[in-house]
């Protein structure tokens, strides 16, 4: 299944629309989580594939959490923090960005598509951006196909 999906991407053909990726989204409390809340207040629709885990700051993200999600079989992992220079805790989002980059490299070395882990930056007012980012990641992961580590459940 995984190999087919990857092949499909390579061929540039449309991904299997019935595949519902499972995505973990680590959100910082002050910007990303607030943007998600605002998206709710604004009733913006976006794909239901991401599950948010709230962290006080994106700087709390650890490489292990990212790997663990992949190990468990997540199809994608997002880390969402404040805009560059705007971290509520000064520089946590820069640290997060570096860790995401490191995790991508590690995953690439074990043969997992690094695109399954991504960093996003947004402000608490960017509700529509939040929705776009979730949609963007969902679509991206859908193109990648199910995680090779997943249980292969697709609806």
């Amino acid at each position: 299944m995984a190999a087919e999906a990857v092949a499909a991407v390579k061929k540039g053909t449309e991904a299997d629309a019935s595949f519902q990726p499972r995505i973990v989204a680590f959100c910082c409390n002050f910007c990303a989580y607030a943007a998600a809340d605002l998206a709710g207040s604004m009733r913006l629709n976006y794909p239901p594939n991401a599950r948010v885990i709230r962290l006080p700051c994106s700087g709390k993200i650890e490489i292990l959490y990212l790997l663990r999600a992949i190990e468990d079989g997540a199809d994608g992992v997002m880390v969402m923090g404040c805009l560059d220079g705007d971290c509520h805790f000064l520089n946590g989002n820069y640290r997060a960005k570096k860790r995401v980059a490191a995790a991508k490299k590690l995953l690439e070395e074990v043969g997992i598509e690094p695109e399954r882990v991504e960093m996003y930056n947004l402000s608490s007012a960017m509700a529509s951006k939040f929705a776009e980012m979730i949609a963007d990641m969902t679509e991206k992961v859908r193109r990648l196909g199910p995680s090779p580590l997943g249980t292969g459940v697709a609806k």
Partner: protein
Amino acid sequence: MSRTAMVIGGGIAGMQAAINIANQGVRVTVVERSPSIGGNMPRLDKTFPTMDCSMCILAPRMLEVARHPMVTIMTNSEVRRVSGQAGSFTVDVLQKARMVRDTCTACGDCTKACPVAAPNEFDLGLSTRKAIYQPFPQAVPQAYVIDKDLCLNKGHLIACERCSEACNAKSVDFSMRDETVRLEVGAIVVATGATTFDPTALEEFGYRRFPNVVTTLELERLINAAGPTRGRLVRMSDMEEPKRVAFINCVGSRDHKSGQEYCSRICCMYGMKDALLVKEHDPSTEVTIFYIDIRAPGKGYEEFYRRIRFEDKVAEFIRGRPAEIAENEDGSLTITYEDTNEGGIKAKTFDMVVLNVALVPSNDTGELAKILGLETDKWGFLKAPRVSGGPLDSSGGGLYLAGMVAGPMDITDSTYRGIGAAARAAGETEGDRSFPEPPIYPTLSTDEIRTGIFICHCGKNIASVVDIKELLEYSKELPGVVYVEENMFSCSEEGQRSMVKSITEKGLTRVVVAACTPRTHEATFQEALREAGLNPFLLDMANIRNQCSWVHPDGPAALSKAKDLVMMSAARAANLSALDVTTVGVVPRAVVIGGGIAGLSAAREFVSNGFETHLIERKPYVGGNVAKFSSVYPQETSGGELISEITCELSESDKFHLHASTAIDNVGGYVGNFTLTATSNEFVSDRCNLCGECVKVCPVKVADEFEEGMFSRRAVYRKDTYPPRYYIDAEACTKCGECVKVCKPGAIDLSSKDIELESGAIVVATGFEAGDKEQLRRWGHRKSKAVLTTAELERLLSGTGPTRGKLDSFVADPKNIAVLLCADMRWGRNGYCSRFCCASGLKSARELKQRYPAANVYVLYESMRTTWTQELLYEEVQGLGVRFVAYSFEDMPKITTGDKPRLVVKDPLMRSTLDLTLDLLVLSVGGIPSHGSEELMRALRISSSPEGFIQEAHVKLAPVDATNSGIFIAGAAQFPRDVGDSVAQGCAAAARGMAIISREFIEVGGVVARVLSERCAGCMTCLRTCPYDAIFIDREGLAEVNMAKCRGCGICTAECPAKAIVLRSYEDDQIIPMVDALIGGATNGG
């Protein structure tokens, strides 16, 4: 005396005032006319110069006000009558019926049902809202409100009531009536703000006639991601994105015709900010700014201007005031303007024109002034006539001003004036300060995991999308779950009661609430846990509303996600542990470092609020730069008089202790508990009888710093300053002992003393140094007697100065005098604008022109930054016949110093070159960081900003907090500013300090980092990566967290290589199980 205070106006200034009054232990009521607090800031997209998202920085502050136990918010309310005086006012407040009770869950069902639509004032009419509405999604209070004027349900005539029918929480209540509430308060802070000028009357700009002419505030809404166009910048005529956008500055400002001769101070900056937003929105957009002068006077502002104009070339800048805007057939607009730099009438066409409009008093300011008995200025802003009260003291006792009600200003200034007013106001509310009892944090044994899950319908908000029945069934089966319950509204009183009951009866040890967002409701549910005797940190919330039912209309998908969210919460909850919050004592004493106007103002606030205060000053006397001023613009008081007004107040108090001639050696400790050591060289005691024998025998002669080094003095000397005694300059003193011998009262002791002080809060007010001597050399300063700085001129012009106000020995019968602005600022090593020097240069020009009417007086300027009413001084000086010559930094004036300086400067307006022999050249100097401030910052472990001044914790919302908690900045130590602003900032720093030392203890703990010392390798990683200096190494060489400093970001835990430091409530076994449960445990995928 009444122990409560009132703040009128809930914008940023009012909010800052309220929080800071409340934090000093004084109850405060905020009276806000509109249905939500927040003022103008929620409308803004970004804030300059850091481009912080406005709502991001404001929203937490709004919640802080709302949740503060000492703050009561009255929205939809107006002050109607005030009587009494400072200390005991009686205020009648009309609270207009909201028609929605505070049980409202902000679900929005009512709005959907409401049939009436009207222009939405929040979006300046660019969108519509219903008669029942929420002003904006983050509004505080969150409850909806009915616009009675619009509502169809008027008495018995028509019965609409669609909203109340739609409301599941039964919160719509048409029986609510307007009510007048009588309050007794000790002090009132007026913070009703300002509004933007309506440019309709300026017909030449075609506002309201041409759809594509908008104001800057409208642009903010158009470009805001949550705005009416969801952040798509379009022009109104055809909803197309404009490719050419023009900004016109000074619309209604600096304009006699529309009645505002003053400069609105902030519009140059926000115009440039908006230009940047437009450019970021679409980089291909051509942006043009029409300006007269670019006024960028503030920290980081000049740098922002340079970036916009020269480095990133965001916009083309055209100097000139447009004469007219004409609309073309395609909706485009042609601006006719005179190009002041290049000359000639020109025209240019744009797709959209943004009017950078003036700020004018809020509509109700005049009426409110009458109610309060306050004076207004000619434009209707409230007057602040008391010099020593700075801009905070209104014309009436016990009534203080915060923010734009006293004139246009930016968010930073509004903030510290709000905080400063809080100090002044709290001073009027004497008596014991009260603080709410610290909450109890039960620590019952919770080893057994018995999780209860409470699922909220949120009326129909969740239940209409998510199948609650199935979610309940699913939840029952989750590991550790012993009980599930559903509530119509878990946050309602009924819901809470039921939750408390269930926790107790079922013996729950963990609670999951599946409802809305923890950002607004976690505190509510934590309270329920506490009430049930359960530690509040044993709660987890699953956000199945904002992040599920509201955004996924597809029922099965929403149910599936809701299941996952609940499952993840249950997994985390099982591993949560009870946390305690403990307290550490606070030393009820303040230390102020630096005795200039800002430091003295801070000390005065501390002392008048009853706190023991130690003021440490390096020099033998206080007063700083201000003590040297011959006059303080715009008032004609001398600097000395101003200082003595404050020192008189201080010297009367036994709480005030001055340590002059004292330098800080070391600072230890943390917020609430600092220890300072200092060395005092105060050799003369108050036994000094001012006989002056000591001066006669002192053999040491040095340059007199008080006279800017123009004259000399002895090592023993005296100035007309405080304390009133002779001083010994320890650095110059050779300790020969001659003075000791002749001193009859025995007031002199030439030995240094060590001082140790404990304090709860520290205010740093080390001021600035006037003039950068190195930069000034370029103009022949100190090489020629005919070249003087404005600081030197102040001394020479002072009636009590070294020449008794005479200039004869420097200049006689002058023919040509020049005043050079930006003599040492905005070029070379000082890239910033020093903010006050344009006015001081003009003041010098005025004085010299008045003294020597026959002389030609020239003012050379690069850009004239006379903000606010300084603009009137500019006009006055122009009226005196002083000539103004604009120079450019690329082609600076050339000065050759001989006996008389020769000046060559290009005059672009006249298209000629000026070549003059000067009798006097006055250099208008700015401020550079004080000598020694760098070491002090290091000792205090606070950061400096790029210019070398002290870095504030947040440029907009925490401008007096230093980067180390418990340390505050007052005055020019943060950035050069004028006297009034320094007073205000001194008061603000004191207010922030008093928020700490008013309390007997501060609470620490909860969600903070904790070191598992048996795992710690002492590697210092945490210490190095903590952004708040909250980690230290203990005697065993292991890391330890200072809980008073930890802010719970968790950065250290993510860095620790030994997993030896954890963030409580966010430990690995509280996060990873969520991942494991979701991916490993989910049974049905997306």
